[in-house]
């Protein structure tokens, strides 16, 4: 069955460093992959979408890569700030009308 795995442990980094989060998947060939941010008590917020034929996408301090051979996406936040502290979710399209299959999320904590 389809499986998506993100860094299971929380990621703690120092302000100003680059945070790198990993999303691996198996038994699946998604047409696109999305990253969301979720703060406690709130719904996920869309950050970036990358398609299967794209290797990299950037938006301000965010960068996403997508390697369909390795079945892996990396999500980078450069010059991280304490305000970037949140849980980050990776999601693949379910190939049926746009439903998303989510990973379990990685909690990021950026210390001043």
């Amino acid at each position, binding site marked *: 069955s389809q499986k*998506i795995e993100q860094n299971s442990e929380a990621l703690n980094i120092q302000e100003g460093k680059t945070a790198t989060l990993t999303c691996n998947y198996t038994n699946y060939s998604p047409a*696109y992959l*999305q990253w*969301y941010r979720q703060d406690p*008590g*709130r*719904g*996920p*917020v*869309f950050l970036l*979408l990358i398609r299967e034929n794209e290797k990299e996408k950037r938006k301000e301090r965010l960068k996403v890569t997508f390697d369909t051979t390795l079945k892996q996406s990396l999500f980078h936040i450069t010059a991280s700030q304490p305000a970037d502290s949140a849980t980050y*979710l990776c*999601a693949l*399209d*379910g190939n*049926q*009308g*746009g*439903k*998303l*299959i*989510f*990973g*379990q*999320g990685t909690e990021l904590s950026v210390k001043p």
Partner: protein
Amino acid sequence: GAGVSQSPRYKVAKRGQDVALRCDPISGHVSLFWYQQALGQGPEFLTYFQNEAQLDKSGLPSDRFFAERPEGSVSTLKIQRTQQEDSAVYLCASSRPEGTVRYEQYFGPGTRLTVT
């Protein structure tokens, strides 16, 4: 407002009670999704509507769960005879403005259901 709204934000139900959760999507969005999120986990798909048509309900965990979107706008998720394992946050999301093929989803704040 411009975003997805859900009500109530919190619901406590005694085991065996029926509950109804409401979702107001972004105006003009064709697609509407319901997800269930357990503590410390990612959202899990429940069901999907395109306008008023329920095209996928493969994620509904049992026949106690029922969803509708009769006029292609507001949606209601109903859970009958609630059980303790139904305790979770229920998230609604909408996407795809009419005439587009944009796949990013916009989520509401969720309804936290606690079954005692």
